[in-house]
């Protein structure tokens, strides 16, 4: 018997591109509802808790917008490197490096420097830290042909282990005996809507999404970067420096993830701890996928993922479903999104 599975790329319309993630979410919620029923919670209660957690009040909506910030910044960075055909799986590590940089500069200067200055310095430093972390992987790919997926994943672990050590050493809060964490930092993101947690980082991230869009589609740099991504042979023939483009795209991508890390520390937690990023950088890959690597489409995409993230937390808190259940629901959404993307982009024939 000859059973063959053929996978062909196809051109999908804008309509299918918008429709596919919606169908994916519906499917995930359907299966999630069945699981909830099984776990003894009414799906109606579950999902009203979920939606309430994400959009239930102005305050909760603001929290969703806050949650969307790291997804947006990292998603846009990942989109940019994807356009250059460099796959950055390392946003997680670059995010951590940015968070470390912001905490460190703040601890160093906060006793004698006003916070706005530290905040600006933290911005620049976190851009640099993330940029270097990403740039190393870019350099290794460009000059030695080492696969960036492998190096970025490895460097995620390196960054995480560095974080663990710093929190027990140089950046340790001497008052905290139980949990490894840094002291409170004074550098912060000003709140833009009083009474909520919505901070300046939100506006900055929207601005950066627009700037990235402009860079990618309106400037010669973006043109060349996309050309190198689409066809490195003709890019080389047209006189572009393909190697430098690979490195540059990883520096920008890493820099934006680093910035996300510092905004997270300064805007949300105000101290550094081990759980500063539990997989935010990996989720951002899916955020960018749903946004079709288009910086402006990643704005709604990151909003949806911010809502899912917060909704799941609230679901767990109000219904008594376990943490693992809420994580399973989250994971299911991701899997359905991935499958639907595949079905939208490729035609699969059996026989």
């Amino acid at each position, binding site marked *: 018997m000859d059973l063959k599975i053929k996978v062909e790329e196809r051109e999908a319309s804008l309509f299918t591109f918008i429709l596919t993630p919606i169908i994916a979410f519906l499917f995930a919620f359907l299966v999630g509802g069945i699981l909830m029923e099984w776990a003894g919670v009414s799906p109606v209660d579950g999902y009203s808790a979920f939606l309430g957690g994400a959009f239930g009040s102005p305050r909760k909506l603001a929290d969703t917008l806050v949650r969307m910030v790291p997804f947006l910044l990292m998603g846009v960075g990942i989109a940019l490197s994807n356009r250059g055909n460099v796959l950055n799986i390392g946003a997680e590590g670059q995010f951590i490096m940015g968070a470390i940089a912001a905490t460190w500069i703040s601890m160093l200067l906060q006793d004698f420097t006003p916070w706005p200055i530290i905040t600006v310095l933290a911005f620049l430093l976190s851009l640099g830290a993330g940029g270097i972390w990403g740039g190393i992987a870019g350099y290794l790919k460009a000059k030695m042909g080492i696969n960036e997926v492998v190096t970025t994943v490895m460097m995620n672990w390196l960054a995480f282990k560095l974080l663990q050590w710093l929190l027990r050493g140089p950046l340790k809060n001497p008052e905290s005996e139980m949990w490894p964490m840094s002291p409170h930092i004074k550098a912060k993101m000003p709140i833009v809507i009083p009474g909520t947690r919505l901070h300046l980082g939100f506006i900055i991230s929207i601005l950066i999404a627009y700037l990235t869009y402009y*860079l990618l589609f*309106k*400037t*010669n*740099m973006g*043109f*060349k970067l*996309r*050309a190198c991504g*689409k*066809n490195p*042979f*003709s*890019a*080389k*023939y*047209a*006189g*572009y*420096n393909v190697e430098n483009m690979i490195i540059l795209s990883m520096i920008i991508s890493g820099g934006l993830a680093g910035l996300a890390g510092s905004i997270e520390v300064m805007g949300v937690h105000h101290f550094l701890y081990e759980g500063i990023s539990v997989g935010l950088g990996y989720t951002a890959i899916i955020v960018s996928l749903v946004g079709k690597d288009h910086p402006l489409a990643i704005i709604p995409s990151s909003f949806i993922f911010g809502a899912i993230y917060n909704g799941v937390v609230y679901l767990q808190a109000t219904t008594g479903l376990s943490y693992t259940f809420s994580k399973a629901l989250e994971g299911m959404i991701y899997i359905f999104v991935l499958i639907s993307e595949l079905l939208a982009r490729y035609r699969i024939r059996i026989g």
Partner: protein
Amino acid sequence: MRNIIKRFPGVVANDDVSIEVYPGEVLALLGENGAGKTTLMNILYGLYKPDSGEIIVSGKQVSFRSPRDAILNGIGMVHQHFMLIDDFTVVENIILGLSEFGIIIDFKTAIRRIEEISRKFGLQVDPYRKIWQLSAGEKQRVEIVKALFRNAKILILDEPTSVLTPQESEALFKTLRKFVEAGMAVIFITHKLQEVMAVADRIVVLRKGKVVGRLRREEATIPQLARMMVGREVLFKLEKKPVTPGKKALEVKGLWVMGDKGVPAVKDVSLQLRCGEILGIAGIAGNGQKELVEAIYGLRSPIKGTIKIFGYDMVRGTVRDRILRGISLIPEERIRIGIIPDFSTAENLVLEQVDFEPFSKPILGSIKKIDFEKINRYAEKLIKEFNIVTPSPSTRAANLSGGNIQRLILARELSRGSDLIIAEEPTAGLDVGATEYIRKLLLEARSNGKAVLLVSGELSEVLSLSDKVVVMYEGEIVGGFKPDTLSLEDVGLLMAGAKRMSREEVAKLWT
């Protein structure tokens, strides 16, 4: 094989081809690159399905769905590029895919049979070595043993000597004679005339997908084969105005360039080209022309030698430096290198110029804002001027036909003010109309005082367009002459490596 027809998009690779081969003979399939030899053999080996025609093996009509079917019918093929797994040993590669060795592999029996085969035919292989440790010649022997291990009665060899040293080639020919004595049939694909004369019993000559000659070796002479292989085509009358050559555009001296196989592909090449001149490089594809062009354009760095472009030393320069000095390249691999298929026609038309005024304006450092309006207007102008058939400038280049993609590339390369134009196989695979148009454009460039370096495997094209012609064979320049001063037969002999002119004779061309 009877009346085989195989079409690919835009070309007929095999046009009603019939060949037969009998046990106990070596059949040589002779032809230029692109003549359809390999396609024909890939059909016999089950890699392609013919559009029509039939294959008969040992009196029985067969239809192969995959090489597996071909192997079961006693057909073996050794490809030009080896199909071996580098990290596996010789014996592992040979038995790969054979079910008779079961899940727990019986290496002993396998090795015994391999040793039997190598003794019988004088094919030295060490079953325990890994493929990556072997030389090209050894790998080829492994491929042959692999075919024999599968009881091949008909053995196809695709350009087997291209990776061999002369001594290895000699040894291979001896082995082939042993196969024939043992009652096997051998099909030998080549474009080298001496090899045909050395090893073949019968010869079939292919040109442009058609059989143009069938003869026994005893009846054949090298000049006759050369003429058949190269052919002559009635060219449309092209108007070639007399032009007085201007300043030196390109000067290459003693250039050596490494090829992809790890041996020099360009050996000690020197040439000169002046403005208002077309210099043709003739030769069968794969004799170093591609590497020479890549070195001149900066895509491949030479081992030694000098390249001067408009008097500037450019050996170490980048592609970008050369573009700024005014060189254009019309690449042979149109779709892979010439365009970005996912970009629009307009964007493809400004690939090299997107950084320059008026198409972009600086905003911050080297970041410039692209003026898409200007690009579109420029594209519309070129589309009209060069008759590119496209629905609009924003149509993806991938949606254009082959001929229009070539027009797009020519429009781009001829319109950006370059004075040195390198055209690599500019008309290969195009229909008559597009071919004629593109030749006319090249002649026009010449009349406008531009220097044109024309690389083409099609001899009639080189001879009718060029002011001077050099012939490349195995990386060297083996001849240089003005068109019409040499007979077609002599040119064919130069191309096939059967004859060469002295350095002094070639050097006369530059004075």
